């Protein structure tokens, strides 16, 4: 299955954020969305989710126009993991995950045993079943991100769209969430995520799309697109590249440390 946008003009009622954007992600693969702040990443995500209509162009799911599907059908195909936030009410974690089953019931239906089983399985899959009865407001940021991911899994979607899943996480949790995202793709889901760190894209994405000032300025396999010149063009700032035999990593900026005595 493929989720794609064709010649999209994206934005809000009073404002155009981006034009002529083509984007495509297939099930079983990971696409990373990179670009400076205000470049239109989140707007593009919301357009692909069907939360805001494209101002021109078309979003297609499995070859069909997305807007032709009902809001419930869309939620059963594409799940959204927003940036973590603190909920107003101290729902227990399992209730939060159970909300992912909303699209599988009708307006009035109560969650059934199958819904509870799916929610429990999602918690288990991410290794956070011990949090089930804890209030969502009382767990750490990393745990909260995993809970939102479990809620998305409970939707049993074909695609998961994540808005900066690693932002605001500590180093260890960043690694954990990235490993989970890769595992989702291995299990057959299509994943689309935004990030500020090209290294995160290099680590888990198959392809990357570079978005600057609402324009797509590059798209392709991460190895081809995430290069020093491309990144410097994307962010308009110097970038340093580090290699070893198998891997590449990027450091932001061009910083010259003052000479200092290196103990040896």
């Amino acid at each position, binding site marked *: 299955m493929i989720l794609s946008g064709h010649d999209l003009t994206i934005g809000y009622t009073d404002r155009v954020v981006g034009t002529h954007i083509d984007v495509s992600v297939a099930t079983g693969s990971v696409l990373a969305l990179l670009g400076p702040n205000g470049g239109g990443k989140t707007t593009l995500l919301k357009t692909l989710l069907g939360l805001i209509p494209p101002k021109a162009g078309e979003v297609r799911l499995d070859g069909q126009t997305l807007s032709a599907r009902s809001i419930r059908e869309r939620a059963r195909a594409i799940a*959204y993991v*927003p940036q973590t936030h603190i909920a107003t009410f101290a729902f227990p974690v399992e209730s939060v995950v*159970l*909300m992912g089953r909303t699209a599988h019931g009708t*307006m009035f239906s109560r969650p059934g045993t199958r819904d509870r089983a799916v929610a429990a399985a999602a918690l288990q899959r991410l290794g956070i079943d011990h949090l089930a*009865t804890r209030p969502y*407001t009382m767990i750490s940021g990393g745990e909260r991100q995993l809970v939102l991911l479990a809620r998305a899994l409970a939707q049993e979607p074909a695609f998961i769209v994540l808005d900066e899943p690693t932002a605001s996480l500590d180093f260890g949790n960043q690694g954990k969430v990235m490993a989970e995202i890769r595992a989702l793709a291995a299990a057959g889901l299509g994943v689309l995520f935004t990030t500020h760190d090209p290294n995160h894209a290099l680590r888990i994405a198959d392809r990357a799309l570079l978005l600057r000032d609402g324009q797509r300025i590059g798209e392709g396999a991460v190895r081809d697109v995430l290069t020093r010149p491309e990144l410097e063009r994307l962010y308009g700032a110097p970038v340093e590249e580090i290699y070893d035999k198998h891997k590449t990593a990027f450091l932001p900026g061009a910083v010259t440390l003052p000479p200092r005595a290196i103990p040896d």
Partner: protein
Amino acid sequence: MTRSALPGFLIATGVLLLGVVVAFSVGRYPVSMIDLLRSLLGKLTGEPSGLAPAIETVIWQIRGPRVLAAVVVGAALAIAGTAFQGLFRNPLVSPDILGASSGAALGAVFGIFLSLGVFAIQALAFVGGLIAVGAVYAVGSAVRSRDPILVLVLTGVVIGSLLGAGVGLLKYLADPYNQLPAMTFWLLGSLAAAHAADLVPVIAPVAAGALVLFVLRWRMNAMSLPDEEARALGIATGPLRVAIVAAATLTTSASVAVAGIVGWVGLVVPHLARALVGPDFARLIPASTILGAGYLLLIDTLARTIAPVEVPLGILTAVIGTPFFIWLLARVQKTWS
């Protein structure tokens, strides 16, 4: 979900039962528990209870309608407050946030100004509440914004203050000897005037609104998320929001029509209920309905017994509600930010 909500529901039901017993027994004419049971048994079996007719009158003609009114109004305000707190994602919201009370107040004061009868005044209050919320909703929806909830709340504040000006004008123009005291009394809220006949037209809208909120309670958890998140979960938030606002407005306007402006109940009770059964709306909606009925019943009993003269209900609920609100504010800053 595994934790049992049973103890919480038992406590809420206990409060309601206690409220009913206390409300029937205490007052200027005390009725013992035994007499209460005998009279009830008599009504059920159809046999004469052997009680003095005065006691029967106190139980069934004077206190009965008032108990029923307190139960209906308390339940209505509590369920509406619970729904609004979820919908507006704010635990400091009360059922009159969208102007239901100020609209109803203007309607009732207008009715008193025109020297209409009790039923007409109630009808005007009810219609006034509905029109006010309808206007707030229409204006709020016309303003395009990415945060429809915030726009609604602000519109509610603005329209509420306009309606307040209308109430002020009518009070200024009213006959200071006949009409003004009636208006003041009504604006303070009271169940003293509750008669059995007045309650019949009120119970239907309260029941209808409560039923809608009750069947939608499973969706309210997700409705308490930010709008886009709820839609990504598959909820058509627009129509559902209209349904919840309409249902909560129906119960609020109907209860204001019978009891006048009784503030704070819809703010305080959902919090007490949340402490009993947790924040999950599937349990919270029924729990706060039961607790709201018991709460207002106890306060109304206080209102008619603590002083030689009856204290207006709205004053007591405010005296209890204000410190509670301040405590809540302090607590919110500690745990919710």
